[in-house]
């Protein structure tokens, strides 16, 4: 680490060392990043809510804690939160007009964990409305731009978090991933993002989209940083009925382990038609590096990959139509003006409060759950979901980890796919099956493709195998410097 490096250039691990050595205070660090956000966020639109007074107060408290010798590895580290997490006293919008004026009355468990660790709440990041989208263009607060190319999308739905980390506005951010919403934006912005095994991170206080698929995870610049963040985010929570009760793990325990003999499965279906040549080239080069580090590669097959998209677009809208029934204009959130009667209050509140993509998905979900169609759509989708999960089981009998591209293309242009929902849905072909199976998946930078836009390498693990995934990523990052590349700062 260069002593002359500016604070925003340093990653979480480097900043943690500086804070612990008291070479910089958390308050100075928070001030430096808030100043950078003030100059850089205008055209990126990555942050949608800032509260510098609250941030700096928390930073001073972190400094006091470090001074007492009670600091941990995240104490004093500024972290941005996707605006899907409720945080007491913070406006919590989920990217929607429906919640534009909503201030959360309590903390999500994830936020609580970061507060307990002494992390500093830097702000709320932009996102696709109710996490429904792959480009961040469905936000009520306007699209996020990709720091590598302002004409490109950052991916979605955690696009604000990804853009903020990529643009060096913060060392780390939280995201959520229902069909690829951490991994795909991480890939498109050249950073690292990890979706843990379903059930490891509490969903309490995380605004629900599709509850059987939603899972929170970290975005940061390196695998080592992700390990530290994961240690803080994971944990049993009785307030989430799907939270798993498991022994506490230290996710960085295997980072440095040699990769000799590790078997990497390459799904034939992930390297087939539909994958852009520039992405394929970068992924192939990454595989050459990994073979050089001692990994073996074997071909595996996930024959139902193509079906993951139709299955997802039944299950996720079905669960969403149920979860979003709560927005009725009566108890909190947006309310239509001068309703004629109760039915008018409900239907205009929801027509005006939800954007086009959210309304579309609620309608799809309502239809597939409606009388007479349940078996043909919902039950059928759940059956194929089982086949998709079995594909992974079979593949993991011959390999330790599965590798492939995160996204079939580099970041696309703003507006390029927003008019055609089905085209947008196909962006998630390599990520969705992982959510359906409930497996952990991550994306790490693996070079650049067309127009100098980043390419992500996806690493999929078996259930609870996050430490091994991070091991592979860390060794790869010791042999390459893609994760250290930064986009040019904006004007």
């Amino acid at each position: 680490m260069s002593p002359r490096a500016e604070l925003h250039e340093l990653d979480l691990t480097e900043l943690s060392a500086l804070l612990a050595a008291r070479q910089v205070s958390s308050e100075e660090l928070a001030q430096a990043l808030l100043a950078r956000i003030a100059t850089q966020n205008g055209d990126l639109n990555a942050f949608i809510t800032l509260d510098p007074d609250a941030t700096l107060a928390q930073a001073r408290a972190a400094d006091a804690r470090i001074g007492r010798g009670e600091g941990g590895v995240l104490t004093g580290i500024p972290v941005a939160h996707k605006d899907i997490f409720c945080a007491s006293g913070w406006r919590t919008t989920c990217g929607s007009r429906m919640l534009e004026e909503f201030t959360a009355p309590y903390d999500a468990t994830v936020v609580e964990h970061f507060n307990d660790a002494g992390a500093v709440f830097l702000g709320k990041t932009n996102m696709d409305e109710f996490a429904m989208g792959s480009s961040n263009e469905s936000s009520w607060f306007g699209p996020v731009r990709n720091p590598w190319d302002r004409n490109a999308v950052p991916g979605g739905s955690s696009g604000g978090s990804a853009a903020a980390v990529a643009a060096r506005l913060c060392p780390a951010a939280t995201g959520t991933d229902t069909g690829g919403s951490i991994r795909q934006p991480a890939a498109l912005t050249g950073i690292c993002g990890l979706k843990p095994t379903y059930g490891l991170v509490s969903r309490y206080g995380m605004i629900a989209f599709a509850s059987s698929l939603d899972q929170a995870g970290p975005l940061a610049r390196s695998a080592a940083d992700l390990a530290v963040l994961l240690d803080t985010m994971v944990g049993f929570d009785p307030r989430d009925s799907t939270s798993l009760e498991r022994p506490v793990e230290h996710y960085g325990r295997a980072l440095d382990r040699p990769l000799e003999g590790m078997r990497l499965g390459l799904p034939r279906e992930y390297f087939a038609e539909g994958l852009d040549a520039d992405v394929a080239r970068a992924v192939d080069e990454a595989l050459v590096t990994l073979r050089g580090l001692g990994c073996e590669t074997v071909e595996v097959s996930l024959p139902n990959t193509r079906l993951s998209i139709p299955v997802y677009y039944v299950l996720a809208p079905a669960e969403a139509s149920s979860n979003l029934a709560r927005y009725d204009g009566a108890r909190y959130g947006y309310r239509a003006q001068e309703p004629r009667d109760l039915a008018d209050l409900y239907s205009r509140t929801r027509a005006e409060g939800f954007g086009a993509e959210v309304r579309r998905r609620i309608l799809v979900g309502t239809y597939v759950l409606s009388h007479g169609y349940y078996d043909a759509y919902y039950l059928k989708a759940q059956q194929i979901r089982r086949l998709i999960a079995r594909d992974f089981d079979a593949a993991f009998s011959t390999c330790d980890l599965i590798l492939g591209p995160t996204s079939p293309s580099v970041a696309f242009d703003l507006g390029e796919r927003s008019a055609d929902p089905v085209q947008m849905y196909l962006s998630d072909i390599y990520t969705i099956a992982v959510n359906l199976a409930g497996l952990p998946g991550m994306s790490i930078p693996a070079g650049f493709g067309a127009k100098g836009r980043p390419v992500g390498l996806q690493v999929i693990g078996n259930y609870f195998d996050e430490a091994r995934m991070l091991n592979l990523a860390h060794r790869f990052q010791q042999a390459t410097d893609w994760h250290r590349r930064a986009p040019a700062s904006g004007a």
Partner: protein
Amino acid sequence: MELSLDDVRRIAQLARIAITDAEAAATRDQLGNIFDLIEQMNAVDTTGIEPMSHAQDLTLRLRADEVTQTDERERFLALAPETERGLYLVPQVIE
């Protein structure tokens, strides 16, 4: 899949989302495309496959029947668009 405008209006009514005639026509086309995608599922024989509702085999936990939440009625009511005497207000339903 062919949806009629009446189908779209009926779904919108079930979902309690107001929809204009112009929106209904555009929505019909978009939903038609989405259902064409969804109906790729029909090619798969799923006879005898146990539906998978969840990623993990979970059993619902029981907990002791003790009070774990404090009364925060005032704080939560403060979030509502309209309240009166501790109640949420909506337009009159019964004359």
